[in-house]
């Protein structure tokens, strides 16, 4: 797999989430992208039982690109890549970790291909509510993000608008020049999901 960048597509006040998605899909169609199926990334959070202080979280994530793999990520970003049956183990650990209520968050949508680029536009839903739009862009021939970052930024500006500048990629600052792998994509999704959850809870308290 190549280098990916997951970024949020802002849903403006006067638009609903599906309308925001439609704007992007129309642009991609105009650019000649071809649909290549659906995709989905989901995350379920397990919380340590209250007797354990401080509270710890384990995020169990799936990416439809790797359907038989399950990623278990802890708070300090340690990632365990394992088979799907890992969930059964989590149920066994009921005495230590319990699923957090209403914490299943997922991003689902259509996958597009355009030359060597793969674009995934997903609607993020927390429980039954649509919360926003996430766009994942993957450039498949390259595995070193430092090499192709400007190229990816240019590509993303191509369909998201010239004024759009994605946030600096976390891997650009943190890591040495190491090849990109599937966990790095999952980390990016997790980070975006956490942002949505935070924002969701803050708006809830305001109301």
């Amino acid at each position: 797999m190549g280098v990916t960048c997951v970024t949020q597509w802002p849903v403006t006040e006067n638009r609903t989430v599906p309308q925001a998605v439609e704007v992007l899909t129309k642009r991609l169609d105009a650019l000649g992208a071809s649909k290549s199926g659906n995709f989905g990334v989901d995350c379920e959070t397990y919380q340590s039982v209250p007797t354990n202080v401080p509270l710890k979280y384990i995020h169990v994530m799936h990416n439809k690109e790797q359907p038989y793999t399950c990623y278990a990520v802890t708070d300090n970003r340690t990632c365990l890549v394992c088979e799907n049956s890992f969930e059964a183990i989590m149920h066994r650990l009921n005495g230590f970790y319990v699923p957090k209520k209403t914490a299943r968050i997922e991003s689902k949508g259509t996958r597009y291909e355009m030359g060597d680029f793969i674009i995934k536009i997903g609607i993020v839903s927390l429980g039954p509510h649509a919360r926003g739009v996430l766009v994942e862009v993957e450039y498949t021939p390259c595995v070193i993000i430092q090499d192709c970052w400007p190229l990816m930024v240019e590509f993303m500006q191509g369909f998201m608008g010239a004024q759009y500048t994605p946030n600096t990629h976390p891997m650009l600052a943190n890591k040495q020049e190491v090849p990109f792998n599937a966990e790095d994509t999952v980390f990016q999704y997790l980070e975006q999901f956490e942002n949505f959850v935070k924002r969701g809870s803050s708006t809830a308290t305001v109301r």
Partner: protein
Amino acid sequence: MATALENANLLSRAILTTQKLRISVSKTFNHMKDGIKVSQDEHGAPKSFASQLQEDLFLINESFIELEKLTMAVRRQREAETIGNTGALSMDPVTDKTPLYPKALETYKWATRLREHSAHSQAFLNNSSIKRSSGSGGSPAKRRKTAPTNLNISTQAVDNLVMNVNRQFHDVKITKIQLNPTVLQVYVSRTLQAIIVLRGLLIERVLIRAHHENTLNDDGTLDLWTASKYEVFQKITEHATAASLRYYLPTMQDLSFRSFMHWLNSFSKLFSTPCRLCGKYIKDNLPPTWRCFRTVEPYHECCRP
């Protein structure tokens, strides 16, 4: 010789008679098909269809008899007289059992025709030969002299060259992965890998793949044929094949290989250098895949000067 001449005369007359026969036959059929115009003979009586047919048939008969006479007159000629000593073969009295001589004649004819045919095709091919390198521009004799030496390159020489190129370009890592024929695997930075098949020191085939793509088949054999699954590397494979022809110098194979490696080395920053002309990274979803053959500056395929 006299009989031959006579026969030739008879044959030419026979041909003429055959033509005459044909004409009269077709005339007869035409008359039968179209009918005849009512005309008057010299006594003023109208000519009937039957009399006209009789006349035509008479003409046919006449020329037919003549032709028959001529064929009878043509004497069987002894073929031995035409081709020198081989004639002795035909002296065998039992020619029916051993048809050696007729077979020999047939072969002779066949060989002559083959020679003529090849002479024609050679002349034709010489006119439309492809001249794409400085080597083939010279006289054909010169080319014939230099061509066989091209392949006599020792493996030592290849190893030395590989070592030198490895030292010269920092981003290029060359390893030899097959001995005969020589196949080199070239990693250019972390961007791409090239599989190069050599003949002597000349580049026979180039295949560009992503750095992380497989070189081996599932059964462990070397995969020289599967193209990369990425569009960008398929495009660069095309350009690399063109470059290997552009740098083809059979007289200076060393230089030819070095210049190609210099060109290939320019891809080390494929994804991070913008096009020289338009200043963009992407056009048609591809980075600048074309490199100038002289200056190795990056251009998009449609931006090239």
